[in-house]
C-alpha cells in the first residue's frame, strides 16, 4: 500500500483533478444568467468519477483486459436496446435514466473498445485483410449503433481509433487505399441516408456561417466573438456579455472554452492549454509489461487528444460543430466518468512498472 502511494503519479493526478475543477468553475459562470445549478451536478459527478477511478485502479490489469470483450459486447447490447426504449433527450436516444441520474452509455464504449483493440493489436505485426476486417467490424459496430441514436460526436470520436492504429502498425498500402475509399463511401452514404437535416445543416452552415443566424454557423460566429472580444485578460468572471446575455450557445458544454476565452482572456487560455499539454505529454511517457498496455495507452490518450483538438478547433471556427465536448472540463457526467475510468486504467498500467 505504501508503494502504491509512493509510485502513484501524483503530479499528473493533480492535473487530472484540476481540469474538472476548472470546468466546474466555468460551468457556474455559464449557468449564471439562467441560475442553473449544473455546476453542483458536475461536482457530484466528479465525486462519483473519483470513486470509480479508485475502484478501477485497484483492479488487476490482467482482469481488466480479460473482461474487455465481455464489457464491449455488453455495451453493444445496451446500445442496441436503447434504440428501442432509450430515453429521448435533446433529440437523441443516448440517455438511460437511473432515478434522476441520466447515463449516456455511448460514452463508455470507448474503454472496452480501446482495451480489446489493444489486445488484438498485440497479436499481429502487419495489418492484412483479416486484421483489417476484424478492426473495422469492432469499430464500426458501436459507431453504427451510436450514429443511429443519433450522436454524431461520440461516433466520430470512436472512428479516430483507426488512424491511430494505422500510425502504430504497419499496413499493406493496398489496404490503406481501400480504407480511404471506405471512408469516402461511408461519407457519401452517411450524408445521403443517415444524417438528419439538422446535422447536415451544421456542416453546410459551417461553410457559410453568416447565412444561418440561429444555426450552428451562428453558434460559431458567436463563439468567435466571445473568444475574440475577451482579449488578453478577459472581461472578468461572470462579466462576459456573450456568455451572460446568452449569445453563446451550449456554454456549459461544447463551447465552454469560449466562456474562459471571453471572461478570463488569452492568459487563462494559455494556462489551460499548458495544463492540457503537460497532462497529455506525461500520459504518453510510461513503461509497460505487455504490448497491449502500450497500445491501450496510445489509443486512449490519442482519443482524448483528438476530442480536445476537435472541440477547440470548433470553438474558433476551424471545424464544423460536431457536438464534441472539451474533455474533463465540459459539463457532462457520463463523459467525465468514462474518462476517469480510462485514466484509472492508464494510472494502473503506469504504476505496475514499480510494483512487485
Amino acid at each position, binding site marked *: 500500500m505504501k508503494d502504491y502511494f509512493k509510485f502513484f503519479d501524483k503530479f499528473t493526478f493533480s492535473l487530472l483533478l484540476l481540469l474538472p475543477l476548472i470546468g466546474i468553475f466555468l460551468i457556474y459562470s455559464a449557468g449564471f444568467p439562467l441560475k442553473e445549478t449544473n455546476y453542483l451536478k458536475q461536482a457530484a459527478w466528479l465525486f462519483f468519477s473519483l470513486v470509480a477511478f479508485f475502484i478501477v485502479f485497484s483492479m488487476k490489469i490482467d482482469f481488466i483486459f480479460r473482461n474487455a470483450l465481455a464489457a464491449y459486447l455488453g455495451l453493444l447490447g445496451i446500445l442496441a436496446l436503447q434504440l428501442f426504449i432509450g430515453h429521448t433527450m435533446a433529440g437523441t436516444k443516448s440517455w438511460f435514466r437511473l432515478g434522476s441520474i441520466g447515463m449516456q452509455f455511448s460514452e463508455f464504449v470507448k474503454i472496452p473498445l480501446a482495451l480489446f483493440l489493444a489486445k488484438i493489436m498485440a497479436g499481429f505485426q502487419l495489418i492484412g485483410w483479416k486484421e483489417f476486417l476484424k478492426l473495422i467490424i469492432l469499430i464500426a459496430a458501436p459507431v453504427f449503433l451510436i450514429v443511429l441514436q443519433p450522436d454524431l460526436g461520440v461516433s466520430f470520436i470512436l472512428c479516430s481509433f483507426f488512424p491511430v492504429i494505422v500510425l502504430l502498425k504497419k499496413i499493406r498500402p493496398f489496404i490503406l487505399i481501400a480504407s480511404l475509399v471506405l471512408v469516402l463511401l461511408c461519407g457519401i452514404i452517411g450524408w445521403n441516408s443517415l444524417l438528419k437535416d439538422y446535422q447536415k445543416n451544421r456542416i453546410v452552415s459551417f461553410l457559410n456561417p453568416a447565412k444561418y443566424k440561429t444555426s450552428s454557423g451562428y453558434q460559431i460566429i458567436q463563439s468567435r466573438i466571445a473568444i475574440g472580444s475577451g482579449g*488578453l485578460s478577459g472581461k472578468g468572471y461572470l462579466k462576459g456579455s456573450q456568455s451572460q446575455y*446568452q449569445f453563446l450557445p451550449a456554454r456549459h458544454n461544447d463551447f465552454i472554452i469560449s466562456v474562459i476565452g471571453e471572461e478570463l482572456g488569452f492568459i487563462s487560455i494559455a494556462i489551460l492549454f499548458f495544463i492540457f*499539454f503537460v497532462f497529455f505529454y506525461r500520459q504518453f511517457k510510461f513503461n509497460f*509489461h505487455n504490448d497491449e498496455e*502500450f497500445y491501450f495507452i496510445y489509443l486512449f490518450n490519442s482519443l482524448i487528444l483528438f476530442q480536445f*483538438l476537435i472541440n477547440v478547433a470548433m470553438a474558433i471556427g476551424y471545424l464544423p460543430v460536431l457536438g464534441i465536448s472539451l474533455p474533463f472540463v465540459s459539463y457532462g457526467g457520463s463523459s467525465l466518468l468514462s474518462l476517469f475510468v480510462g485514466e484509472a486504467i492508464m494510472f494502473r498500467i503506469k504504476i505496475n512498472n514499480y510494483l512487485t
Partner: protein
Amino acid sequence: MYPSKRKLSGAYVKRAATVAAVILFLIFLGFFAAFWNIQIVHNEYFRRLAVQNITRSIDLTAPRGLIVDCKQKILSENKINFTLYLVRENVIDMKKTLRVASFFSARKVDAIRNIIARYKKYPHFYRISIKKNLARDTVIFIESRQEEFPEFVIGIEPTRTYPLGHCAANVLGYISEISESELNSKKNRDYRLGDFVGRSGIEKQYESYLRGIKGNQVVIKDNLEKIQKVESEIKPVIGATVVLTLDLELQKFIESLFVDQFGAVGVVDLQTGGILAMVSKPDYDPELFTQEMEREQWLALSNDPQNPLQNKFLQGIYSPGSVFKIIMALAGLQEKVITPATTVHCSGSQDFYGREFHCWNLGGHGTVDIFSALQNSCNIFFYNLGKRLDIDTIASYARMMGLGNASGIDMPAENTGLVPSSDWKMRTMKQRWFPGETISVAIGHGSLSVTPVQLLKMIATVALRGRMPRLHLLQRIEKDGKNVMEFTPEFTSVPIAAEYFQIVVDGLFRVVNHEGTGRTAAIAGLDICGKTGTSQIIAKDNPRYKILTKEKRFMPNSWFVSFAPKDNPRLAMVVLVENGGDAGVIAAPLAAKIYNKYFENERLF
C-alpha cells in the same frame, strides 16, 4: 516485478513517444497561434461585434401634435397603442414566423411577406412594424411567451386618433406610412420606413409642425431581444398644437344636415378670413389609415365613385350656374355696359347668333333691370349683358374675383377650375372662340368651372364690397404654450368700384328678402344676401352617373352663395348640394339653418 511479456522494441517505443510528442507540440503551438490571432490581433474587431450584439438603438416615435378648433376642442390627438414588431435576425423558421405573424395580425401571409420585403435594405435587427393597435389579449399572450417567439417584440407607442370619427375628416386629412419612393427624396431625409406622414388636409399642410421630434433609446438586450437595461435615452418631443379657426359646433351641425345628400359647405368669418366650417360629403374615417389598411379596404375607398377621399370644397369642380351672374353684373357695371337704369325685356327666350336661348322661366320676366335680374335670376338679362361684353373681358373679371386660380387657402391639393377665354380655346382646341359660347358663359355654363372655395372667396369679396380676404384654416400654432406661428388676416382690393358692389349687394338682398329665387333662405331679423345657382351637370362619362338613381341622375347641382348681415357683414357661406335640384328648394333653406345656428345665441329678435 511483474513478468514482462513485452515484445515491442525499445526503438519502436521511443519513436512512437517522439512522434506523439511532436504531434502534441504542433497541436498546442497551432492553437496558441490561433488564439493569439483571434484574441490579441483581432481583439478590437470582435470587441466591436460583441458590443453590437448587445446594444440596440431604438427610435422612439414622437406623438403628433394636437389639432384643435377655435375653442380648443380636440379634433385629433394620440392614444397608446401596442405595435407588433418583427426582428428578422431572431427568426428561426421563416415559414412558422409568417404563420404566427399572420395569426396575430389577422392578415394574409403574403401581405406579411410583402411588408418584410420592403425592409430589405435595413439591418436585420431593425424592428419591422407588422401590426398596430394590437389587442390587449394578444399583447399578454406574446409577452408571456417571449421564449417561444423571440422574433416578435411588442412596442408601446403613440398612435393618431380622431375622437370625432368622420367629423371634419376632409379638413383634418389623414396620415399613413411613408413609402419607399418617398424616402428616396431628399426632403424626407429624416423619415424612416414605418414612419407616418400627413397625406391630406391639415395633417399634410402642417406636417412639419405636427410631426414632433423622434426620440432615441440605446438599450442592452440579450439574444432574445429582451431588454436588460436602458443605457441612454433621448425622449421624443410631441409635435406643436395646431389651432384651427374651425368651429367644431358649427361644423358638426352642418354635417348633421347632410343626411343622404352629398356636397360641400364652407363658412367664413369675414372679419378674419378664417374658415368656421368646411364640410365635404361623403367622407371617411381618417383613423382607418393609422391602422394597417388592407389593400381591398384601400381600393374600396379610393375607387368609390362618390370619392369620399376628395375634399369637394377644395377639389370638386362644378359649373357655377347662375351664381356667376354676380360677376357678370360687376363686370357690366364696371365696364359701363349697363347702369342701374338699364332694362331688358324678358319674354322667356331670345335669339342670339341664330340660336334660341331660353330663360329658366319660360313665361318670361317682363321688363328687368339689374336688381330684378339678380333677384329672379333672369337669364335673358345676362345673355344680353354677355353679348355686350366679350369673353376675354368676362374672363378677366372672373379671374379678378378669384376664379380660375387656387384660392390660396392653407390646404394642399386645391383645384383651380377653368375660366375660358379666346386664348384658352385657341391653345387647347386650336379653334376660334364663337360669340354664341359667350352667351352660355354669361349664365355660368359652358366650359366655365369652379370649386366651392372659389365661390366662397368671391361672395366674401362681394360682402366686403371689394376687399378680398385670404381664406385660411390656421389660427395659430402653439408649442409649449408659446405661439410659433399666428395667422394675421390679409385683405387685398379688387379694382371694381365699391358703388357697383353696393348695387350687386342690393340685388342679392332682394334675392332672399323680396320674393326672389332665394327667399327660402330668409330669416326674420337677419339681413341675408345671397344668390342661387342651379347647374345641369351630369354627363354619361361621369363616374357618379351609374350609381345615381334615374330620378337623381339628371337633377342639377344646387348652389347657394350668401352672406349676412347686409351691412357690416360677418359671415359668408357657400352651400353646394350635388344633384340637389332647385337651389331655392334645397340649398337656400340649408343656408338658413346654418345662419340660424350661428346667430342663435345672439339673436335679439
